[in-house]
């Protein structure tokens, strides 16, 4: 005999009330992310909301009907924790884009698997009744979007981890777009056929899951490495929307609200990233941007020369400056140079030089990537300036140090209407009195576009690994 109290705890009303508390906490928690000071507490509040939602669900009457259920749930939770905790503890900040890609993927994968089980249940009592039809429509949406997200994120992970080449991989001409469109039509067509009452698990597996999987691969393979911030944001939105769709299918308010918050977040980020590249989301998805490997040869053909410099000269230039702006890019992440950069900043500050960081919204491989790397290296976030704040300051800046950034500093985006990146908002580093570019070699950026900044008479280049170069400069500065 259960106690009266436990019976109350298992009533639908009580559980629904818990769900409302849960999504309230999540929304309140996410609103803490408006500033670094409140963000830690916000994240913890959202986690409490999630815990409330999970516990309320487990209270549901009949949840522990049969011990197999308990063991299976426990198995899933233990496996998930065993993978999730070490991953979260050990991941390096340079690898955050990969981590987020994987997390997007598993979320989408979970939605697709749940949809598969729901599909099997919908036909358990013969044909589709009205309730089952409703479940089906939303689950099929979730299955399509969720598998696109799962497989697309897998490819994005592969590209970021450099398992798969970062350059665009695509069919020639318009064939790729037509193939993607065809796959989408097949998936939607299969969904319509299934909703019309056709009971065929084979059609569900092939027409929905396999076709969406292909589509996910085909969508991300043609997109170049530098466009990854957009892709990751978009896949984030997809996963959120598919979770919300599952919520409607299961008539579960907290899943709907949580899914939509993620959907909104991913959509906003996608939009901001696309604006920061001055390209439309469909154009980015169409892919093929960058990777024109012929560019370096063309650069030398113009006969322009670059001025190479040495660490000692850079140190002198920096030490006698009043204001130095550091413009970091993906190259800083690749070289793991963020700690070295922080040391240089301290050395310069000790000499009375004011140092600021100029952060382009799409520098790096995901939204906010540079900020996290520099935060890891203990750079106070007050020193990080967004593009619109720092651009007016370049004319007052003595030296700008560009570390592993290329396309986001390319003046061609302002001056050359023929350039593929023309119109993209850039860090106007060419307006400062002197520019020092740290580069590994003369290869072009990911967009494969030559950068006139390098040939500017006031620009000098320091070749070599960014981390080694920065450490060398720091040593020279301290020796002065």
């Amino acid at each position: 005999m259960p106690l009266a109290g436990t019976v109350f705890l298992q009533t639908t009303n009580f559980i629904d009330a818990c769900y409302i508390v849960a999504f309230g906490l999540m929304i309140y928690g996410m609103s803490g992310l408006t500033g670094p000071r409140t963000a830690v507490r916000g994240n913890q509040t959202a986690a409490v909301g999630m815990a409330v939602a999970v516990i309320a669900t487990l209270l549901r009457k009949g949840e522990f009907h049969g011990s197999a259920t308990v063991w299976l749930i426990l198995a899933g939770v233990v496996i998930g924790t065993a993978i999730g905790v070490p991953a979260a503890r050990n991941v390096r900040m340079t690898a955050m884009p990969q981590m987020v890609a994987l997390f997007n993927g598993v979320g989408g994968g979970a939605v697709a698997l749940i949809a598969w089980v729901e599909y099997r249940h919908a036909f358990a009592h013969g044909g589709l009744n009205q309730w089952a039809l409703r479940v089906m429509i939303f689950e099929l949406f979730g299955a399509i979007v969720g598998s696109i997200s799962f497989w697309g994120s897998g490819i994005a992970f592969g590209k970021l981890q450099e398992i798969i080449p970062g350059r665009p991989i695509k069919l020639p001409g318009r064939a790729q777009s037509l193939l993607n469109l065809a796959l989408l039509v097949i998936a939607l067509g299969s969904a319509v056929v299934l909703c019309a009452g056709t009971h065929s698990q084979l059609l569900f597996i092939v027409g929905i899951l396999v076709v969406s999987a292909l589509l996910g691969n085909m969508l991300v393979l043609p997109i170049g490495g530098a466009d990854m911030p957009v892709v990751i944001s978009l896949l984030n939105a997809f996963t959120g929307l598919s979770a919300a769709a599952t919520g409607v299918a299961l008539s579960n308010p907290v899943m709907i609200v949580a899914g939509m918050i993620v959907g909104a977040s991913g959509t906003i980020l996608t939009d901001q990233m696309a604006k920061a590249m001055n390209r439309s989301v469909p154009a980015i998805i169409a892919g093929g941007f960058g990777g024109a490997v012929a560019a370096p040869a063309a650069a030398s053909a113009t006969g322009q020369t670059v001025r190479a410099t040495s660490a000692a000269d850079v140190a002198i230039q920096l030490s006698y400056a009043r204001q130095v702006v550091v413009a970091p890019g993906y190259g800083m992440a690749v070289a793991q140079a963020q700690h070295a950069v922080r040391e240089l900043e301290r050395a310069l500050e000790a000499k009375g030089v004011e140092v600021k960081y100029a952060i382009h919204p799409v520098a790096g491989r995901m939204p906010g990537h540079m900020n996290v790397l520099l935060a890891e290296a203990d750079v106070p976030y007050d020193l990080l300036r967004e593009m619109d704040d720092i651009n007016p300051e370049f004319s007052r800046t003595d030296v700008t140090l560009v570390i592993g950034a290329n396309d986001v500093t390319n003046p061609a985006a302002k001056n050359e209407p023929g350039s593929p990146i023309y119109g993209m908002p850039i860090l106007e580093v060419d307006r400062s009195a002197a520019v020092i570019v740290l580069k590994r070699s003369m290869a072009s950026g990911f967009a494969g576009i030559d950068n006139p900044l390098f040939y500017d008479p006031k620009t000098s280049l320091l070749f070599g690994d960014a981390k080694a170069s920065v450490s060398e400069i720091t040593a020279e500065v301290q020796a002065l």
Partner: protein
Amino acid sequence: MDSLVIDIAVLVLAGFVGFAVISKVPNTLHTPLMSGTNAIHGIVVLGGLLLMSEAHGVLEQILLVIAVAFGTINVVGGFLVTDRMLGMFKSKPEPAKPEPDEPPDPEAGA
């Protein structure tokens, strides 16, 4: 009202709330925002929990265990990594009056 209508109303309203809340997040915090939303969409774990007691046969059980594992990875991993990351964001310390609880910086003398 039909429960479907209510659910879709919740969906639409939540979308607007999401836009209102997330559009205030500054660029600085976009990476923690993404990992935080990774944790939030781990809410799909509820789907696995709700369906587990209705699972028929080994196939459905396997699918749901994987779904629960995936959702748990999202929830646990997402919140933990976001917490770890947000802990790194520090403001410029006031040089006049140093925080007493601030850990001593081993590299301060370098």
